[in-house]
């Protein structure tokens, strides 16, 4: 028998070993570990050499960027009349104060994301071709946003429903402000502006925000319906989801624009074309949301249902308080991915004759004054799409971190 071994002194607690980085060491570790890696590095460098210099040459000497400032208002708001354009600013100011307020309610410390968002209006003020008046209006956005934030910080976080309701009210108020009240085609500020004049980035954003806002709750209901014990509800949900997922969005958009009117009774007032497109987008997106949320529901263990039931919660309470919060958290990345897709898919409405960002780009390109500027115009709107998509993706990652997904 071996003698027992007993520790007489405690082993020292040490910090983990650190690697010292030198430029050469980094290069070797990341780019030249073996011959294959080295080959790939040189191939990539060669590829970049072929691509980047011509791109820069085009961007700085060849491209006719004048097309962008000359049509900037068109890109932003389509044919929304200049006499009423101040209303768009009113919407922006309202949004700034409410978003600032919401941010203040939710987060009491000044995060990098807040600084970036707060810097946006200031950065936009530096755009060289903006008129002084535009810059002052942007300054208004900045000030109102800060004011909203300062007020919001004084509201304790447990009252966050106030912020949610304010956001929803603002959303609907914005539509009324943009639509106006009086008769059409007058010079008054509040004259009605028919939706066929709404366009550009304004229309793209409205379609996306309302598309996401409405398709999300409908999708959640469909996902729950698909799991329902009642055969009627389950069958309707499954049929709906499978039918919508079986057809492309563009066909729904065409159906809305061309065929819907045929189904409505004689003398029924024609439905607004933007609304028809929006409904098609909502119906389409809801089916995909439903399937994503279903994935989340399936990821919640059976024990959670049992624990909720054993405490005497009703089915509604169990879903609202226990199951959905966990299911939705689990699918935030997928849902945001889908919403980014929805945002970009709104560009399909250009094919049914609406003038969203892509539609308006085609209008600009059809103008004989700007012949041959396809590259400049498409690069510009691509950058706009990218900025908004990236912002959504970034926001979702922040949301995941603040909700602690994957940590608990």
């Amino acid at each position, binding site marked *: 028998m071996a003698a027992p071994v007993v520790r007489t002194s405690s082993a020292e607690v040490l910090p983990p070993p650190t690697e010292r980085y030198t430029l050469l060491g980094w290069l070797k570790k990341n780019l030249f570990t073996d011959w294959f890696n080295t080959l790939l590095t040189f191939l990539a460098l060669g590829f970049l050499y072929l691509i980047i210099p011509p791109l820069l040459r085009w961007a700085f000497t060849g491209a006719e960027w004048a097309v962008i400032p000359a049509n900037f208002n068109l890109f932003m708001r389509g044919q929304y009349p200049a006499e009423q354009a101040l209303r768009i600013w009113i919407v922006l100011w309202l949004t700034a104060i409410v978003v600032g307020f919401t941010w203040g309610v939710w987060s009491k410390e000044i995060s990098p994301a807040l600084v970036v968002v707060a810097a946006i209006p200031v950065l936009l003020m530096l755009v060289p071709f903006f008129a002084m008046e535009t810059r002052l209006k942007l300054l208004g956005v900045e000030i109102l946003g800060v004011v909203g934030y300062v007020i919001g910080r004084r509201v304790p976080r447990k009252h966050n429903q106030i912020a949610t309701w304010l956001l929803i009210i603002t959303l609907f108020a914005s539509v009324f402000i943009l639509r106006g009240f009086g008769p059409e085609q007058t010079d008054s500020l509040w004259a009605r502006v028919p939706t066929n004049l709404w366009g550009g980035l304004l229309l793209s954003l409205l379609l996306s925000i309302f598309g996401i806002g409405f398709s999300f709750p409908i999708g959640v209901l469909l996902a729950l319906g698909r799991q329902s014990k009642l055969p009627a509800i389950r069958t309707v949900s499954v049929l709906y989801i499978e039918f919508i997922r079986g057809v492309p969005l563009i066909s729904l958009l065409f159906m809305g624009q061309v065929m819907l009117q045929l189904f409505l009774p004689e003398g029924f007032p024609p439905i607004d074309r933007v609304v028809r497109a929006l409904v098609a987008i909502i119906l389409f997106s809801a089916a995909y949301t439903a399937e994503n949320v279903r994935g989340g529901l399936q990821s919640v*263990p059976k*024990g*959670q249902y*049992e*624990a*909720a*039931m*054993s*405490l*005497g*919660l*009703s089915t509604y*309470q169990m879903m609202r*308080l*226990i199951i959905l*919060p*966990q299911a939705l*958290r689990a699918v935030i990345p997928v849902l945001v991915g889908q919403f980014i897709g929805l945002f970009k898919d709104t560009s399909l409405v250009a094919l049914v004759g609406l003038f969203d960002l892509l539609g308006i780009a085609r209008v600009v390109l059809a103008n004989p004054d700007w012949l041959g500027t396809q590259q400049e115009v498409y690069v510009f709107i691509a950058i706009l799409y990218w900025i908004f998509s990236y912002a959504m993706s970034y926001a979702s990652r922040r949301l995941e971190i603040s909700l*602690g997904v994957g*940590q*608990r």
Partner: protein
Amino acid sequence: MSGQAQQDDIIILQNVNKWFGEFHVLRDINLNVKRQEVVVIIGPSGSGKSTLIRCINRLEEHQSGEIIVDGIPLTHDVRNIEKIRSETGMVFQQFNLFPHLTVMENITLAPIHVRKMKKDEAEKIAMELLERVGIPEQAQKYPGQLSGGQQQRVAIARALAMRPKIMLFDEPTSALDPEMIKEVLDVMQELAESGMTMLVVTHEMGFAKEVADRIVFMDSGEIVEVGTPEHFFTNPQHERTKLFLSQIL
């Protein structure tokens, strides 16, 4: 004997049968539990112990026979089911705490939403219960930050917050590391001494010997033998009981 419902029987099971598909998992179960009685159910795995206590609060549905809990017959009537569930606390093998809620929120959720209690009052009761299970300092943490033993004690507090008349325990220590089993058993013993009616499925023979008023031995979906701990550990009668006890002791 089992057919006569007595006044102080809080749980009455009469000729209860249940099948999982073709598999006859509960076979003609007859069992009465008195108020303040602690009944421990033992038996080999797959014998239907868990299914039996899960039938009592309708996590599983029995197909024939009668279950009456505190005078309320367990039928398809949803109101009866919810009433029985709010009078019956349950503790699970896997704790089943709500991971997205703090310990405090886990405990106060049902009192606030089912009993319609004021938040302050519910939190006061929750703190008392956390004191009772010995972890008041963990109130603001999330379940994932606690050890298994602490989580199970929170689960017991969560069930007690509804002021149940009966507590069901479904293998409460089977998922715990050995050094944490005692802290949970101590809480359960204290609860039994306070007069709670308890039905406990467990493999902890020490607990059964010390705390149980009666032990029920199940095998293959049947109740094979019922008796006091003394009877069980000194003088078991049925062959299957003897075999089982010889395997585990």
